């Protein structure tokens, strides 16, 4: 389980996160939603150690990630898989080399074992035939899937996805959501997804946290999302004209 307690982060005079707390359970897909500039990505970066908050704690099964010693941080990092917004694939490596990279760097597995594991992960995301291609030769959706394959190659306990649907067409977006949900169920990982995609919220949001101006304004799930009386949340989810009209009917 991941627990965050009173996370505070500022950039200069601007407070981006003003005391965010929450819990994320294993085998559950938790969504952090909110408009642009509300601090979602900063919160994610605080949780994965790319940004250090001024205050607060990030606990991974009780282990404090921020104040833990080097070994604790290293062991927690090995349990993480992260899908970055643009995939963050290494340009100079092929698809399979990208997926195999964490194994090359962090394990003592034999080459055959590493290849087998990387191929399994590529197969799991439906890209078994793309192993020899370079990242520049594949589409945005494929990059996301390769990113997911790389994120799960080390059998992570915690999976973080930063806007997995951004820049994707609706159909590919749904496939990515389904893949994230399947992997969460299959491997019982604690999955946290940053998104502002309404479809994702309704489809995979077992738990949803709504951020507004650096504060957590609402927490619930996809069933209770549309029944909230938080005006900022309603403004956010009904910004889409179609949904607004549906809700009035």
């Amino acid at each position: 389980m991941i627990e965050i307690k009173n996370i505070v982060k500022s950039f200069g005079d601007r407070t981006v996160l003003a005391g965010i707390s929450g819990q994320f359970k294993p085998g559950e897909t938790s969504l952090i939603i909110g408009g642009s500039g509300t601090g979602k990505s900063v919160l994610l970066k605080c949780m994965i150690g790319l940004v250090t908050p001024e205050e607060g704690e990030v606990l991974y099964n009780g282990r404090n990630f921020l104040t833990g010693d080097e070994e604790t941080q290293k062991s927690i990092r090995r349990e993480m898989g992260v899908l970055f917004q643009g995939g963050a694939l290494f340009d100079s490596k092929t698809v399979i080399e990208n997926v195999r990279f964490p194994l090359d760097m962090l394990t003592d597995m034999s080459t055959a074992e590493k290849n087998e594991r990387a191929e399994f992960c590529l197969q799991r995301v439906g890209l078994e035939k793309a192993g020899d291609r370079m990242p520049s030769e594949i589409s945005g959706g494929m990059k996301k899937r390769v990113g997911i394959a790389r994120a799960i190659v080390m059998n992570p306990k915690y999976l973080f996805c930063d806007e997995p649907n951004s820049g994707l067409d609706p159909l590919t977006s749904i496939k990515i959501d389904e893949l994230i949900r399947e992997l969460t169920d299959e491997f019982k990982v604690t999955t946290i997804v940053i998104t502002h995609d309404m479809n994702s919220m309704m489809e995979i949001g077992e738990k949803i946290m709504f951020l507004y101006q650096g504060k957590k304004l609402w927490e619930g799930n996809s069933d209770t999302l549309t029944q909230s009386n938080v005006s900022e949340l309603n403004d956010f989810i009904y910004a889409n004209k179609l949904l607004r009209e549906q809700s009035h009917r």
Partner: protein
Amino acid sequence: MSHLGRYLIFLRSLFHNREKFSVYVGLVIDECMQIGINSVFIVAIVSTFIGGVSCVQTAYQLVSPLIPTTIISQIVRDTTLLEFAPTITSIVLSGKVGSSIASGLGTMRITEQIDALEVMGINSASYLVLPKVVAAIIMVPLLVILSAFLSICGGYVAGMATGIVSSQDFVTGLQSNFQPFNISFALIKAVVFAFLISTISSFKGFYTSGGALEVGQASTAAVTNSCIAVLAADFILAQLLLQ
């Protein structure tokens, strides 16, 4: 001063929490290709012409018939070893290699590739930059040796082609009053310049933030700062070592 402080902390991070030795071997070889082998052509062209021009211009300034023409090749040799080969080669490499390093790392930064390494628990500075520094320290002195050789050859060809100096006089001049320390001096300069170019360019690229525009700016800053650092170090080394 804050930039200098960040630069020194960055240098320290290269050697802290390093990866396995075997990881670096392949990376250093790749970087040797990028930094060294891929720069041979431009270094060869520049060095040959600079040698030729220095021969012609030295002859132009020696107007007294009392000065033997063997002096021309002595001057070409010494200016090449003391200054042209290490410094001009390094200035050329600041442009070619420095901009390539800075833009490469800058692009990795803005496309979150460096974040991906950090999240895996890999020391990204050490993994990405240390091989470049080691490769530069290996390859730049070799390029300087090549440059010195081709520059003197360029002077010889220019001397012959223009009839300024005979072949025999050129070779006699090359062998006269030779100071072996000049070669050591050129190689010391090459190592120092290689370190400066690779670390300054990496520093500029590594801490890029923003987008494509900032990558371009980082690349420009890397070239500018590397050139200034090379020239400042050139002066300091000359003062320290040529007393």
